[in-house]
């Protein structure tokens, strides 16, 4: 395991590389794309478990933080969708270089799945894209988070004095006009180029990705959908600050890459 910085000097990114515990031929590599905001905090433990299991199964794994997020450089207000897409590209290049790979796969969760999908349109070196409860429309995601925040704020005791507006933040993280505008422009249903050889969309309990599934039904795209019984409680106010344990999803994603089932 190596913890390190990569990327340009102006946009240093934090990454943790877990080499394959045993090296299959040909070697397999996975870049983990985490979600945005509070979902990043919630899913960290589960993604760490996934990383460890994939590594033990013989997969090289790079887990990283976007600019302005996690341990990467930059304040939270400096993050942008455009930068984060670039960060995914940097992570792909870094893993290929570290593990000596010609191509990698991506596992993305929520907005991380969206970023992974968007980052692959100009690349030919992503074999498989696994999207776990992807965000299809950025505007809808922002609305969901805002509604969740409002519900959570209603459970808070009344403040004793004036309270600043919560318009420019989403559950603990800045969400200014610029980032909001970028989210509004994100729509996977308008993306026409899907280059990974295999695309797997995972929907957990209560999530529906039918629109995306239909959009991905194209002659030049190999797309699969899976439903996994696992209640991630993405929209539950009481779960906003709870760590997600999603072993069912972790086990399934691990099996997708085991014994080079995904090529």
């Amino acid at each position, binding site marked *: *395991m190596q913890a390190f910085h990569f990327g340009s000097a102006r946009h240093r990114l934090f990454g943790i590389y877990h080499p394959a515990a045993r090296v299959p031929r040909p070697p397999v590599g996975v870049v983990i794309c985490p979600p945005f905001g509070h979902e990043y905090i919630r899913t960290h433990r589960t993604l760490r478990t996934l990383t460890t299991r994939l590594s033990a199964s013989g997969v090289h794994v790079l887990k990283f933080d976007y600019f302005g997020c*996690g341990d990467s450089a930059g304040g*939270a207000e400096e993050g942008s969708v455009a930068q984060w897409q670039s960060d995914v590209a940097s992570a792909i290049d870094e893993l290929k270089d570290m593990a000596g790979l010609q191509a990698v796969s991506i596992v993305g969760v929520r907005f991380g799945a969206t970023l992974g999908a968007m980052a692959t349109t100009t690349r030919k070196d992503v074999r498989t894209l696994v999207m776990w409860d992807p965000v299809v429309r950025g505007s809808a995601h922002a609305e969901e988070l805002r509604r969740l925040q409002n519900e959570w704020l209603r459970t808070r005791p009344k403040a*004793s004095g004036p309270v600043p507006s919560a318009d420019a933040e989403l559950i*603990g*993280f800045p969400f200014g006009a610029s980032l909001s505008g970028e989210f509004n422009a994100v729509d996977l249903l308008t993306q026409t180029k899907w280059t990974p050889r295999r695309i797997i969309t995972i929907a957990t309990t209560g999530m529906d990705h039918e629109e995306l599934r239909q959009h991905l039904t194209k002659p030049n795209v190999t797309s699969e959908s899976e439903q996994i019984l696992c209640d991630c409680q993405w929209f539950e106010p009481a779960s906003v600050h709870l760590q997600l344990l999603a072993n069912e999803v972790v086990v399934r994603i691990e099996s997708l890459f085991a014994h080079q089932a995904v090529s």
Partner: protein
Amino acid sequence: MFGGESRLVGVLTEPAERASNNIACIFINAGLIHHVGPNRLYVQLARRLARLGYPSLRFDLLSRGDSDTRRDGLSFVAGSLTDVRLAMEVLQRAVGADRFVLMGICSGAVNSLHVATQDPRVVGVIAIDGPAYQTTGYHVRYYLRRIGRVWTNTLTGRNKIGRWLRGAPAPVERSSAQPRAEDEFAYLYGDLVMPSRDEAAQVLGAMVDRGAQIFFIFTGSWAIFYNYAGQFRDAFPEIMKRGAIRVAYAPDADHTFTRLHHQQRLLDMVSDWLTASFGGGRGEETGNAVERPGVGAAR
């Protein structure tokens, strides 16, 4: 990467200009949340402290965050002590620190205090929503607020009487008994036994005797343990007179300082306390801090 079977992961933040002391700060995991802290608070704090001249290490205890699973059989409490001592050694080697300020939220606060009682190199602790002791004033406020809520719920139809008056159906019953602080402590902190108030007074007194400074911060989410500004002073009047303990009460803030203005207030409170207690820069940009991720061996 430091050797051995189990490995610890962390990020060292080094200031562009050091404060004129050999103190470094260590952030300890808040519950299961990894070393960036709730809402990335530990990252924000580390970079703010660097502007004051303080190096820091935020890292994951074994079985937390990115660190490996603990395999040495130590309990959570004993293991945390071992891991934090290792963090101190890392800072000693990397930046020459020989004194430390520990900081943590929730279980991080408990661990910080526990390590401080065991290791004289710890000269300061910032304990956010850590252990607290209920006083007469706490109980009075608790029951007054309950009475207030009963009246409000009656008038708005949210309790049995109110619903009966309005002819509304009943929801599922929940217990209205006041939860015991000891039970909540056991639920949160496992094998760490909550000391009695007298024991806590002795321990805090010993720390103050050797010159340690302690900053307790309590939020509104901690109401089961703490519900008014003077509670700590009322629980430990003699220790508070000695001036080494500061207490802040932020009833509007939640446990993880989710609102951005609460995060800013926390950064300011911690900065003010650290510079008042140990000196340091003015908090202006004196150059970019350097951050170094690393992996190290646990013993």
